[in-house]
Each structure stands twice: as C-alpha cells, then as structure tokens.
C-alpha cells in the first residue's frame, strides 16, 4: 500500500521535468494536469482503501534523507484521512485546471511546480521522521511560493510571495526548534523514537507553543495570518484553491500529528491557549473577509475563519483528552476533522468559482462585477451551493461540523477545571458570532458578484466557463451536498482516526432501526441531541415542491415582466445599487472602530453648492501595524546602522581587529 503511494508521489515528481521539457508546446497544459488528475485519483483511492479497510499502520524506510536515519514513511488512519483530503483537492484542482489552465499566458511558470507541489503535500502527510517531515513541509512552501509569483510582473505578487516565503520559513524554523526539543541532542528524529521518549512537562509545553506558532503560521492563525490573504489570491486560482483548501489542512495535520500523537498526554491549560487563539482567529478572519472587495481575498480571509473554528475544536479535544474524557475528546476531534474535510471541499469550490469569474471578466474586484447569474448561470449555481455550505446552513455539510463543534462545547460543564468551564462558553459565543458573520459575508460575496446588475462592461460581456471547470465544480458541490445529508457515513469513516488519537470514538452512527436513528447523527445520546440532514433536506424539498405544485395548479402561475418597483424610484444608473463596501457598512459601524480603527470622514457641501458630498472610509490593519510593521522597520534600522561598517577607513578596520585582540587578551588575563 504505502509503496504504491510513494510510487504515486514519485510519479508526480517525475511530471515536473517532463513539463519543463515540454514548455512551450501547446499540449503541455493538457498533459500535466491530465496526468496529475490520474495520479491524484489513484492516491485518493489508495487512501480511501486504507481508511476503510484500515489495516494497521504500514511503514517503509528508504535510504534517503539523513544518512544514518533514512527516510521513514508511514500510513496510519490519520495520515490516510489527510491523504484523502489532499488528493481529493488535488484531483479537483487538476480537473478544473484542465480547462482553466488554458487561459494562462505563461504556463511554463506554473506547470513544472504544480505536480511537485502536490507531491510535497503528500509527502508531508506520509513522513514519519522529523527530517523528512520538515523537508517536505518547507518544500511545500517553496513550490507554492514559486506558484504564487507565477505572475511576477505584478509587483504586489512579488511582495506577497516575499512575505509568504518569510513567514513560511519562520514557521519551519519554529517547528525545527520544536523537533530539536523533542529529539534531543543525540538526534532521535524518527517519530517512533519521539513517541517513546516522553518529554518533561515543561519541555512538552514549550514544544506545544512552538508547534502552535509553526503550524499556525502555515495554517493562518491570527496574528500569524498576514501572508495568507496576500499569497492565496496572488496565485493562479486552481493553486489558490489548493493553498486555501488543502495546504492549510496539511498545516492542521502537522499540529494534530505533534500535539495529539508525538507529545503524549496533554496538560489541561494547553487547551486554554489553543481555544483562545482559535476563537479570536475565527472572528477576526471573518470580519476581515467582510471588509474586502477583492473576491479571492474574501475567500482567503474566510479560510482564516474556518481555521480558527478547526483549532477551537482541537483545543476542546485537547481539554477533554487532558482529563481522559475520551468520548468527548472523540466528539470534538471528529468535529475538527470533519470540518477539515468539509472546508477543503467548499473552499476549493469557491476558489474555482472565483477563478471562473476572474477568467470570464478579468477582474477580482467585486465592485466591477454583478449580474453574473444571467451570464454564467451554472457557475452561479455551484458558487451558491458553496456559499450556503460555508455559511454553515443546513442541509449542507458546513453546518454538520459546526453543529458537532457546538455539541462538544455543550459538554464543557463536565470539565473539572473552572478556567475551562468559564472559557469554553465564551469561545462558543465567538464561534456563534463568526458563523453568523460568515453568513453575512457570503450573502455579500454572492449577492454583489452574481446578483443585481452588471457594474462594468467586462461583467456584462462575461461568458459561461468551460466544461472541465464546471465538471470540477459540480463534483465538489455534489460532495458538499452528500456530506451534508449523510454525515453519519463520514463520522463512522473517521472513527479509526479518532480512536487512534483520542483513545475513544463516537457511537456508531449508521445502523439502528430504519426510522428512529437511520441516517441521523447522535453525538452522545438521542435524548440529548440529534440531527438528520437527509430528513431536513427531504422535508424542505418536499414542502417546497408540494407548495409550488399546489400553487401553480390551484392558484395562478402567470409571470409578467416589468421595471423594478423600488418604491417608485427608477434607478437609472447601475451605480445606485448597493456596492460591496456599502453592503458591509452597517457591520463596519458595529465592529469597525474596535477591530480596524475605522474612520468614516463625510464631507457635506454647504447648501447651494453643487460640489458632491463625499464619504471616505479609512480602515487600518491593526495587527499589521502593531506586529509586522515594527519588526520590518526594526530590521531596516539595524541594517542601516550596521551598514556604516561598510564605509570605514582601513585604519578603523584595523582598530576593530585590534579591539578584538585586546578584548580577547583581557578575557584571558581575567580568566579564573
């Protein structure tokens, strides 16, 4: 099994040189994405097979990497699950790119890196020793960096790539320190060795903090998220989908692997940190998303929000695990993993949609879009499905994982520690807030982009996207629906993973007699809480159909077209529509001054003057201003100060040498 998986990865790597060789030829795009599609599908099936037939963890050691250690690879249920996520996303992206990739003007800057990027993400999940893990991890960053700067003539993209690469290396170095602590000076880098060496409490805590920083900076936890909204939109859309939908999940994998698997038994207060960070990240992310006017940037920020949700659930799982409440831990962990899966589905879908819009209209600026539902009805439909899913609305899949998270939160009274008892509901409030805001955010995203009237000639002239892209998007939309109405199936599939990490599992969902429990999910007990996506969907569907039928049959079914009523004001210009920023204005008023230091300066012309009234809004990214800007300026200042040393006279250089000599001699003279 694992050898086949590695062969698949090898095949992906092998595509790159062929792509370089074929660069310039028109069939390169088709070849690369086609073969990527095939290979990722194979890997996806392998991973599924392992997950369901779940054989015991299979390992293999190749004579690569660290010479005396070799490269360890291992597939256990956890790895298998994330392989599923990675390769499903990869396959979808490849399929989408089969159509989308034809719009590239410089394909040779994308094609060689795309398969290697996929391979790197697979390797991170497969790796079973610190070195292989970190090599793949950083290689993943490197290849995605190359993809981010594919459109390198736009200066912003270069800057985005720069920030991204710096943050990624920062994360890798932090993880490196973490492994340095885990492995010790004599270098027991294999994960087995790390598992068996039980670190002291203090060490373990430090490791957890380092990992939270390292993996968090990759996943986009506030305040380490700064690179994400820059880098994800800059890349080609199918790559953005991979980065947002899949790579952040690989980062989550890194956190889970170390925090739940390698460190050993957690301490309860760790969860305070993780919970807090997760909750804040969720709310901040979605608030930022609401303020953006760049469609892909909205999606990137909403990724941050979902990552926050995932980490909050992981924090809960840590808390329960710390107190040995395995079933509760299993519930929280299932919620997290299910959301990992769901988010990878609908976020890829949404980025594909954004990509189609981008290639159809040539802009990502929502203020230039509008009315696309008439021009690209199918894209609009799948995008709507994605929005409904990510807004956590039943009967789609986003709601299921969110619901499970809430169920886990409701178990918090059983926690012995008072800090957690009080903290968890507050985090719950944050998550509820972020969920509601997410709904608002995607009403805005879909409404401004697809509904209303076209705000620019480009939008008016848009065409429906190609079949390959549509196929990819329909596939993902279908997956969203299935995961939404048959969640029990997925929860049971996650059972081995959860068993491995939390030492417990949720009750079996499928089965039970046909009516009462069938297809409904029951976290703890039926009297406590249950949800049946299928029936909710069926009820709404039937009710809607029956009403429609009845009304059309018994009452009128006639349609007349006319100008919009609008209280009798005819809106001549499309500019009178609500714009993206005006739509966000009420929420900006509520949260803006607190989070963004928002300033609204309205200038009213004096009566009689014909000057236009202006409203200018200033938003500051406080996190950037107070975290990153100071660091950057500090580096600049130090560099300038030290740079004087470049321009000294020889005599001053000699005096430096002399000074060093005298100092060292003094040290010797005063040596005990």
């Amino acid at each position, binding site marked *: 099994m694992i050898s086949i998986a590695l062969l698949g990865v090898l095949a992906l790597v092998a595509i790159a040189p062929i792509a370089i060789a074929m660069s310039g030829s028109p069939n390169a795009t088709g070849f690369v994405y086609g073969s990527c599609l095939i290979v990722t599908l194979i890997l996806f099936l392998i991973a599924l097979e392992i997950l369901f037939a779940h054989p015991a963890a299979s390992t293999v050691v190749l004579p690569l990497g660290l010479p005396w250690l070799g490269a360890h690879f291992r597939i256990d249920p956890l790895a298998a699950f994330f392989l599923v996520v990675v390769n499903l996303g990869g396959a979808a992206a490849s399929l989408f790119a089969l159509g989308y990739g034809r719009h590239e003007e410089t394909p040779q800057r994308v094609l060689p890196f795309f398969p290697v990027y996929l391979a790197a993400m697979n390797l991170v999940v497969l790796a079973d020793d610190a070195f292989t893990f970190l090599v793949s991890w950083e290689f993943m960053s490197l290849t995605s960096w190359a993809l981010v700067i594919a459109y390198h003539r736009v200066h912003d993209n270069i800057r985005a790539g720069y920030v991204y690469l710096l943050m990624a290396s920062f994360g890798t170095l932090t993880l490196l320190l973490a492994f340095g602590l885990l492995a010790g000076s004599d270098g027991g880098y294999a994960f087995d060795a790390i598992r068996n060496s039980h670190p002291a409490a203090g060490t373990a805590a430090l490791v957890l903090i380092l990992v939270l920083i390292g993996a968090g900076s990759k996943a986009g936890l506030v305040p380490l998220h700064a690179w994400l909204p820059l880098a994800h939109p800059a890349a080609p859309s199918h790559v953005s989908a991979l980065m947002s939908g899949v790579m952040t999940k690989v980062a989550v994998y890194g956190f889970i692997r170390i925090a739940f698997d390698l460190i050993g038994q957690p301490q309860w207060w760790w969860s305070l940190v993780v919970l807090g960070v997760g909750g804040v990240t969720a709310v901040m992310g979605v608030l930022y998303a609401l303020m953006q006017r760049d469609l892909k940037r909205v999606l990137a920020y909403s990724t941050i929000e979902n990552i926050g949700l995932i980490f909050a659930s992981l924090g809960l799982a840590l808390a329960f695990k710390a107190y040995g409440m395995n079933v509760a831990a299993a519930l929280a962990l299932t919620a997290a993993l299910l959301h990992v899966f769901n988010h990878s589905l609908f976020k890829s879908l949404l980025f594909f949609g954004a990509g189609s819009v981008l290639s159809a209209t040539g802009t990502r600026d929502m203020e230039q879009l509008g009315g696309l539902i008439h021009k690209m009805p199918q894209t609009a439909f799948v995008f709507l499905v994605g929005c409904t899913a990510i807004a956590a609305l039943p009967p789609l899949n986003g709601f299921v994982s969110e619901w499970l998270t809430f169920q886990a939160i409701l178990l918090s009274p059983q926690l012995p520690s008072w800090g957690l008892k009080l903290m968890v509901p507050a985090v719950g409030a944050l998550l509820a807030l972020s969920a509601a805001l997410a709904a*608002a955010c995607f009403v805005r995203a879909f409404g401004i982009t697809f509904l209303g009237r076209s705000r620019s000639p480009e939008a008016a002239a848009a065409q429906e996207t190609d079949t390959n892209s549509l196929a990819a998007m329909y596939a993902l939309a279908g997956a969203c629906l299935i995961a939404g109405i048959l969640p029990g199936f997925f929860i049971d599939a996650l059972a081995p993973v959860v068993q491995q990490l939390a030492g417990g599992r949720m009750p079996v969902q499928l089965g039970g007699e046909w009516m*009462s429990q069938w297809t409904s999910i029951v976290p703890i007990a039926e009297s*406590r809480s249950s949800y049946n996506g299928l029936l909710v969907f069926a009820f709404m569907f039937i009710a809607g159909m029956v009403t429609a039928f009845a009304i059309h049959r018994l009452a009128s079914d006639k349609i007349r*077209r006319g100008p919009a009523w609008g209280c009798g004001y005819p809106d001549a210009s499309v500019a009178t529509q609500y714009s993206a920023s005006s739509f966000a204005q009420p929420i900006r008023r509520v949260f803006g001054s607190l989070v963004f230091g928002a300033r609204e300066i309205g200038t009213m012309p004096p009566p009689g003057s014909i000057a236009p009234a202006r409203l200018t809004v200033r938003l500051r990214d406080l996190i950037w201003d107070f975290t990153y800007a100071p660091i950057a300026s500090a580096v600049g200042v130090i560099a300038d100060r030290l740079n004087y040393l470049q321009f000294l006279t020889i005599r001053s250089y000699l005096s430096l040498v002399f000074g060093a000599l005298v100092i060292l001699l003094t040290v010797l003279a005063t040596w005990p």
Partner: protein
Amino acid sequence: MAVITDFALQGAQMLLVLLMAPLLTGFVRKVKARLLSRQGPPLLQPYRDLIRLLRKDVVLANNASWLFRVIPYVVFAATWVAASLIPTFRSGLLFSWTADLIAIIAVLGSARFFLALAGMDAGTSFGGIGSSREVMIASLAEPAMLMIVFVIALIAGSTQLSTMAAFMNSADVGLRVSLGLALIALIIVAVAENARIPVDNPATHLELTMVHEAMVLEYSGRHLALIELAASLKLLLYVSLIACLFAPWGISPAIAAPTLLLIGAAAYAGKIAALGFLLAVFETSIAKMRAFRVPEFLGAALMLALLATLLRFVSRSF
C-alpha cells in the same frame, strides 16, 4: 398502528402551525388596533390577503433571475419545517429528533440567507438597504440565540426540544437567574427576528426605516403571499418556542391519551393568545428605534445570554 398515529400527529402539527400562523398575526394586529382604540381589521383578514395575493399574477423585475423565483418556496419550506419541529401541544413527535434546537435555528438562518439574497437580486438600492441591515441584525441575533440555547442546554443537558421541555416542566428546574436572563434575551431576539417594533416596523414602507419590507419590496403575487405566510409562521414559531421552553405546562407527553392531547391543545392555544396579547401591548407601548441603535439592543441580548452561561454556575436552584 402506533406508527400511523405518530404520522397523523406529526401531520396534524404541521397543518396546525400552517393554519394558526395567519390567525396569530391577525390577532396581534387586532389587539394593537384595539389598544390604539381603532376598529382594526377582522381576525381573518390575513387569510383573505393571502388568498387574494395567491390569485394575482407575479410581476417580476426585468433583472430578476431564476434564483429570485425559487427563493420564496425555499424560504417558506424552511420556515414551515422549522415551525413544525417545535413541540406545540405534544412533545416527542415522530420526527422531533430530526433536528434539535440548534438545527432549527440554523434552518431559519438559511431561510434568512436566501431572503437576503433575494433582496439583492433586482439590483435596486432598497433591496440592498434591506439585505445589508438584515444581515447586520442577524449577525448579532443569531449568536445571541445560540447563547440562549447554550444556557438552557447546559442546564437541561440537552438540545432536544422535547427533552428540554420535559426538563423545564420537571421540579428540579427551580428559579434561576440564568433562566431569567435567557428569557429576556430570547424575547429581545424574537422581537428582532420577526421584524417587530422597536427593531423594525412591518407596517411601514418608509424607505429609511424599513428592513424586512425593503428586502421583499420587489415581490408580488404568490411569491409575496408565500413570504408573508413564512413571516407569520416565524412569529408563531418564536411564540411557541417561548411557550414550550418557559411555559411548558400542559404539553402532553409522547405516549398519552386523547384527553391529554386535548388539554395540551387547549393549553397551547391559551399560551399563544396570551403571548400574542403581550406582544401587541409591548409594540404599542414603545417607539421604533433608529437602525443603528439596533446593534446595541441586540448586543445587550448577546451579553445577557453570555452572562447567563457564566452565571449558571453560581445560580444553583434555590
């Protein structure tokens, strides 16, 4: 046989809420008119309106898309399903486990999601106003509602409405500060969710003040009828939710004799009437607030609910 009766009861519940919703709306209107010492429309006026609307043709804005025509059915179906999942006269109905309270709120959320989209479809400025204000209100009301659910669920140890109702009916509830706070918060949320004064005025078309009406401004004919019906269903839903959670007396248990069912039905009607009357009184006694006071109003609800979740530790039953 039991299954048959179960089905029958579930169906009865669905029809009951569907039929009672306009009545409640009419009742509230009537009471308000009386309190303002007006004659007011007859009780059954809402039914007449609905039927009239259903007969009329639909006039669609030129720019309206297919989505605009689908949404009324989605909204109505979602609200109806949600409403029929609230125990009214009998708890533990056949499908009661289909969705717990959190899911019911989420189903309402999806109804609102689509309604807000509908507001933006025609591409008029009013639709935009309505939708943006609606989502702003929702972004505070939904978390508040969820926190209320948390309070009660943390106390009752369940989010299943039947179980919660049973618990609230049992002796070991006692009087708790948290529950009091939760009730106040729930009322605030209910007022906001149903676009009642002081958050919104269902009877106005003054463009600066309207929220819900602005969203549905472009609807006409059967579509409008469905949306109106959905609105009154929602009102009924919240009223019966309050009734079921905070006045669960008389709700007949899962396995019960017909007499108990009758008692339950009677009690339900009583409760609805009482609450409707209170609502009318409340609405007549205060004025509509500015749109940007609403966040503070709802924020208060959110804070109350959060406070309640924290207080529940200190406030053991006494």
